[in-house]
């Protein structure tokens, strides 16, 4: 443990991180957002899921600094009379949860597929990559919308809304795994003819051990780089699905569904219900993207360009 830490302290990664003000700033903002989101019950003034805190008389109150605002609700309230700030923090938690969950799922799926296809080659490679190609020829957002529409019809809207979090993770995971598969495959193809793999083969290790213990760790650079960008993508996809009414229900809103419910009231001048969750969402995606850009520049792996 101590050795890893010392190695990390001397690494080029940390060195270039310290040089880059944007990266430091992004990481700081991201950490703040993550901590606020994950510890939502601690930070939010009210519990938006508790009906006792909701009073319909408080609905559509503007932010506290405006004329009609109330000091109790810093950023105002939404249409159901929930404190907007609390609802946003809980929504942020859901967005982060779904985003990371979806990336873990698509990562596992894509890495296994890419590894098998790249290392074993031949028929398996042809079949798996054909599937990935076919799916990649459609925009991932469209695939996600289709899958969620089908799920919603198959489960019925009531049950879909109950199971929304795991279902969204599955939907977004299924829609985006080919990106991982292609990247890992390309990296494996580059690694598998190197001498250390040859050596491992010569001492008679079986191929599963070579694949997962020797080749896989060497593909992790590219996986790490696309993972950051994929988290941003997954958060965006979740927001888009929720905005279309195919994601989180209004009772347990994510940032996307909050924007959706606020949009219906924007014509009556209630801009805050849309704007604040929107800023939260953009901030979250922006800092992840900035970190992803920085990581790509520093690690500079030969990524598959598609």
């Amino acid at each position: 443990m101590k050795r890893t830490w010392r190695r990390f302290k001397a690494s080029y990664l940390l060195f270039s991180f310290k040089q880059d003000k944007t990266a430091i700033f992004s990481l700081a903002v991201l950490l703040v957002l993550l901590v606020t989101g994950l510890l939502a019950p601690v930070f939010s003034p009210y519990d938006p899921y508790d009906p006792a805190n909701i009073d319909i008389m408080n609905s559509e109150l503007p932010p506290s600094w405006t004329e009609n605002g109330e000091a109790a609700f810093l950023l105002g309230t939404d249409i159901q009379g929930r404190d907007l700030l609390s609802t946003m923090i809980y929504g942020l938690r859901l967005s982060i949860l779904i985003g990371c969950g979806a990336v873990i799922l698509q990562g596992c799926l894509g890495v296994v597929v890419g590894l098998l296809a790249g290392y074993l080659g031949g028929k398996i490679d042809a079949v798996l990559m054909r599937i990935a190609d076919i799916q990649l020829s459609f925009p991932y957002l469209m695939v996600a919308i289709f899958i969620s529409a089908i799920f919603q019809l198959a489960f019925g809207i009531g049950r879909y809304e109950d199971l929304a979090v795991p279902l969204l993770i599955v939907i977004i995971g299924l829609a985006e795994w080919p990106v991982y598969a292609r990247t890992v495959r390309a990296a494996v193809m580059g690694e598998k003819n190197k001498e250390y793999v040859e050596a491992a083969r010569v001492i008679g290790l079986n191929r599963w051990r070579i694949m997962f213990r020797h080749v896989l760790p060497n593909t992790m650079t590219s996986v790490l780089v696309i993972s950051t960008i994929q988290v941003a993508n997954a958060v965006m996809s979740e927001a888009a699905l929720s905005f279309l009414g195919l994601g989180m229900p209004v009772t347990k809103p994510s940032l996307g569904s909050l924007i959706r419910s606020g949009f219906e009231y924007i014509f009556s001048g209630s801009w805050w219900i849309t704007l604040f969750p929107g800023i939260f969402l953009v901030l979250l995606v922006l800092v992840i993207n900035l970190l992803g850009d920085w990581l790509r520049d520093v690690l500079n792996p030969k990524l598959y360009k598609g």
Partner: protein
Amino acid sequence: MFAFVVRRITQALFVMLIISLVGFSIKNKIGDPIRDLVGERVTPAERELLRDKLGLNDPFVTQYLRFAKNAVQGDLGVSFFHKKPALAVIAAKAPATLELVFGAALIIIFISLPIGVFSAIYPRSAFSRFTMAFSTLGVSVPVFLTAIVLIYIFSVELNWLPSYGRGETVSLGGWDSGLFTVDGIMHLILPCFSLASIMLPLFIRLIRSEMMEVLETEYIKFAWAKGLHRKRIWFIHAFKNTLLPVITVFGVQIGIMFAFTILTETVFQWQGMGFMFLEAVERSDISLLVAYLMVVGAVFVVVNTVVDIIYGLVNPTIRIAGRK
């Protein structure tokens, strides 16, 4: 070359086969055609009789073959809600979506080209730096948020532009067009700008980096040495070679824009295919949903195949690489 075309077309047919299988499974497992046909008063026994008569108790493969045969002949079933053939419903909505994409494409071309070229020629100017920073931000803003902000500024606060619908349209032989009336154009502005906003940052960056790369090449240095006028070097010599990769990416991104039309159309209540699709989901109109899936799938497959074949014509290495 002939072998390449044949292989590519076989592949396209195979993809269509998979899409139709998916579509049919949805229809078969989730949809209930009897519900679409009869009212509530019909007894279970009569329903069963109707099922038999319509061949809904046949084996999966027989039913699939029937579905595929009808689909090839352009019959994708009848929409439960509209009581019309699903394909006709989609065809009626298609012009709206196509005009939206067309308008957005025009905006992208006319904004990203000048800005991209300018920031490649003067990468250190304040304007270039500003656009670069702005485009990083632009990638992170979801399209529906851009659309809502545009509506709030231009429709709610300033009241300059309409916020929903297509406005006045002119019928041109079955094609309801909003391009020929002032009202229609006014309605197009906001949706097109929102749709364009997702692609603009990407294209500005792409054009900039391609152009900067071209400006570093030997033949541009030679043109400078030859004493050509700078405008001639920038806009004739360098610009032409910048365009090639840009056009390629543009073709791919147009397809991706179709996915985003679903979002844009929802915000603006735009009566296009995407809006229709979401309505179909809400109404559990499975025939229409499956028909949409098939049509969009077919469009993507055809476009991808044509693009690939053109590629093969232009760039022979692809033909060989694909063969392995």
